[in-house]
């Protein structure tokens, strides 16, 4: 088994298992909040105290969902859950592949023992750092321009990831100093801010959603790290003993 096949299979298996666990938590605590928020989507936001100019208070959600109504979308219920689980698992495998790839490229092996640290790193890079500027949002909440937010998201992920890898690899004060700058930079620049419009989605749904979404993400990362490390080590050992048998 060559190196690519080994890390590919380890990442696919780890991503699949951790992705399914994340999906279960999402369907339990996160998806119901999305469905509830959608009932407010497109509605008039709650009137502001002075009932000023009705036309001035643009419904936050009305222009939020400029979806092409003709485009295919899964039916609510089993079909929607199925596609969400599928997308969850594919994204999970994507995250696991990135983790495995970075480990091989940087030369810091993921093992069962240090996997939890890799998981924590992945959680900080892909969820916590972006959420510090762009909290996970529900459908129907006012938001800044999509392209600008996506750009900020990627910039934050790359800067935070580079910072953590540099610190893990070099373990000296220069790396820590450069890492601190890289971690802070996206937040000093600042994420694109939503327009000052009232949100159609009640605040308690939004706060519950942000916390639940991050928690479901933490479940994924804390499983995928150690599992990827375990499988990676196991496949490497199997490969080593095979090689020995061939050469014996």
């Amino acid at each position, binding site marked *: 088994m*060559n*190196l*690519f096949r080994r*890390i*590919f299979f380890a*990442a696919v298996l780890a991503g699949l298992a951790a992705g399914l666990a994340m999906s279960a938590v*999402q369907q339990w605590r*996160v*998806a119901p909040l*999305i469905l509830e928020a959608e009932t407010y989507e497109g509605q008039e936001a709650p009137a502001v105290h002075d009932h000023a100019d009705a036309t001035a208070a643009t419904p936050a959600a009305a222009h*939020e*969902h400029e*979806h*092409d109504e003709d*485009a*295919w*979308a*899964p039916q609510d219920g089993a079909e*929607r859950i199925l*596609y*969400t689980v*599928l*997308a*969850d698992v*594919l*994204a999970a*495998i*994507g*995250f696991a*592949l*990135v983790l*495995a*790839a*970075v480990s*091989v*490229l940087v*030369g810091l*092996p993921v093992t069962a023992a240090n996997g939890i640290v890799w998981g924590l790193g992945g959680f900080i890079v*892909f*969820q916590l750092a*972006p959420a510090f500027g*762009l*909290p*996970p*949002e*529900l*459908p129907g909440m006012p*938001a800044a321009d*999509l392209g600008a937010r*996506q750009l900020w998201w990627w910039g934050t992920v790359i800067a935070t990831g580079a910072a953590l890898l540099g610190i893990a690899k070099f373990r000296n004060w220069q790396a820590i100093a450069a890492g601190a700058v890289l971690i802070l930079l996206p937040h000093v620049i600042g994420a694109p801010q939503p327009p000052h419009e009232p949100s159609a989605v009640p605040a308690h749904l939004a706060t519950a959603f942000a916390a639940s*979404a991050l928690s*479901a*993400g933490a479940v994924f990362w804390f499983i995928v790290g150690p599992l990827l490390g375990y499988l990676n*080590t196991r496949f*490497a*050992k199997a*490969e*080593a*003993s095979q*090689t020995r048998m061939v050469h014996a």
Partner: protein
Amino acid sequence: MTTATQTQTINLTLSQRLVAGGLALILGFVLLGGIGFASDMRVHNGAHDTRHALGFPCH
């Protein structure tokens, strides 16, 4: 067993690591890009709840 694993790790050349790591990295980012960022409305609608739950910018 430990010795064999170590030998195996040392045997990996830099180019082997670059090819395998690079390939896995591209594959991972293609998956993330497709699920989280593709603008095609059918992909968007299918992966909609995943995008929101993972905190990807959506809409």
